[in-house]
């Protein structure tokens, strides 16, 4: 019974992304999408990839990490430097997927290097060390020549577009959803629920923690490559501590361990400050008030009944069972 629900939930996540993509295509083709709206598409996808991948470590593995922006920046710079190097050798259609791989793998490599020592730490310590990692990466990038230093990296070909962005978002969501329902995902969730029992049941805790950590970092790197190829300048300042917290907010708001929640939160929380841009000084005040309100409402008991009303699946089931009842009555007549 529950199995079916899991399946449906998963397809709803996929559906959201496909519908968003379809809407984007239709609006762009018909010319109804404003320039501003078009410019939102890639950043929204980047937000979704970041939130869904961080959810793997924070929501499913249950470890608070604050260095997601660090992995994103590693991916962004690796991907951008690669693209600049091969700019004249390869066409964009070959260059960009390779850049994605280079960025993702570099971020994954860094996560192995820092993960092996750091994943021995638990809880708060892990959070602090990953936070420090993000800051160290930022400082290194500012001080290197190859990364353009504090001025930022210019001249990256702007290969990313909304089609690539949506495709990569879908890949991220599919991979992470499939992972979390598989045996590996079960092991990861078991470590979250009870580390000692997982170990005693034969689960190699270090291996699975590292696995979740590395996969999350890979997709953060992918998001970074998308980011780097979407703007003309990539500057290290973008990937600071605030960015990591911002991603964490998306995950917590969408619900720990809920991929669909992460997708929705990542989309809405990108749009909200953009829409409020006209209000200038009041923008961040309204943004934070809305955040606080959503958090309070989301955790309150009363709201869960409202949420149930909004639950599409339940509504469908209700409709269906009433229909069946009606048919049964007809049969009796």
């Amino acid at each position, binding site marked *: 019974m529950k199995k079916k629900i899991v399946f449906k939930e998963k397809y709803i996540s996929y559906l959201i992304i496909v519908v968003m993509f379809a809407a984007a295509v239709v609006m762009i083709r018909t010319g109804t999408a404003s320039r501003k709206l078009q410019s939102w598409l890639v950043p929204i996808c980047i937000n979704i990839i970041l939130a869904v991948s961080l959810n793997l470590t924070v929501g499913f593995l249950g470890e608070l990490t604050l260095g997601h922006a660090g992995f994103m920046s590693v991916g962004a710079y690796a991907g951008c430097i690669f693209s600049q190097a091969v700019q004249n050798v390869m066409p964009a259609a070959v260059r960009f997927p390779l850049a994605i791989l280079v960025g993702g793998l570099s971020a994954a490599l860094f996560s192995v290097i820092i993960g092996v020592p750091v994943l021995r730490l638990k809880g708060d310590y892990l959070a602090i060390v990953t936070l420090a990692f993000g800051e160290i990466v930022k400082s290194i990038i500012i001080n290197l020549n190859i990364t353009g230093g504090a001025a930022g990296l210019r001249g990256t070909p702007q290969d990313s577009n909304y089609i690539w962005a949506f495709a990569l978002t879908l890949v991220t969501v599919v991979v992470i959803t499939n992972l979390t329902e598989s045996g590996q995902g079960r092991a990861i969730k078991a470590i979250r*629920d009870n580390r000692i029992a997982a170990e005693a049941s*034969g*689960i190699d805790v270090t291996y699975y923690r590292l696995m979740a950590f590395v996969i999350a970092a890979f997709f953060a790197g992918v998001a970074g490559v998308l980011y780097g190829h979407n703007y003309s300048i990539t500057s290290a300042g973008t990937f600071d501590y605030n960015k990591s917290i911002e991603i964490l907010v998306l995950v917590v708001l969408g619900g720990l361990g809920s991929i669909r929640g992460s997708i929705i939160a990542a989309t809405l929380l990108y749009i909200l400050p953009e829409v409020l841009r006209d209000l200038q000084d009041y923008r961040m005040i309204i943004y934070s008030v809305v955040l606080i309100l959503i958090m309070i409402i989301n955790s309150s008991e009363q709201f869960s009944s409202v949420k149930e009303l909004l639950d599409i699946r339940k509504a469908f089931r209700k409709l269906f069972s009433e229909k069946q009842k009606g048919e049964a009555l007809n049969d009796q007549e």
Partner: protein
Amino acid sequence: MIRNNDVKMVPLPSNAIVPERDVDKPPVLSVHQLGIDFGGLTAVDNFNFIMGRTEIGGLIGPNGAGKTTVFNLLTNVYQPTRGTILLDGVNTSGKSVSQVSRMGIARTFQNIRLFDRMSVIDNVKIGLHNRYDSNLLSSVLHTPGYFRHEKQADEKAMELLSFFDMQDYAQHDAGSLPYGAQRRIEIVRALATEPKVLLLDEPAAGMNPSETEELAENIRRIRDTFGIAIVLIEHDMNLVMGVCEGIAVLNYGRIIAKGTPDEIKSNPDVIEAYLGKQEDR
């Protein structure tokens, strides 16, 4: 089927005693001179222990005697300061907790440790993890091989759950179940790892007499069905005396008596450890 409640214990060449039926086979667990110090405190010392392949053994003793410490040593949660543990003839020293589990020692915990937010069947499938798991790539791609593995694991898990008639609970969250059911799931999860030795840490804690009765029956049924050795730590003397074939009594980290239930009941050292020294009047 091994069903023999009034078993005869006979000595092995190594001077330990095991049930008569296990005498021809090498012991499944043999612990020699085991000891651990925490700083200056010796928690367990000079612990010698042999388990026959299908023996039900008991480890009893007053609170703080070091019983759970022994379990933690056997499962390598603690690395022993001295001594050796041979599981089926293989030394477990230096192995990690998960490796020891894979070698064939499974356990339950004094305070239940389930994966609360996972379903009952997923809890059991964690125990099956090392046998039915597909690789990362096929998991991520959901290949036919992945579905085949999942199906096998599902079937095996249901089969194990049916041992306790718990198939109907399969999709419930483990944390939402009543206490007795949680204890049973913990045992099923431990059995799923296909152990050679099952360690039960106070399985009857918090149970009423009729539930304890059922537990005793279940412990025998596990031994008979799976043909494994079981060690239990327990304070409920009716259970221990009723179900165990050999008993070791621990006090202040040392074994003060070993023998059959009848021998233990009449041992003056044991009575002293539990009730204090009787004064001469």
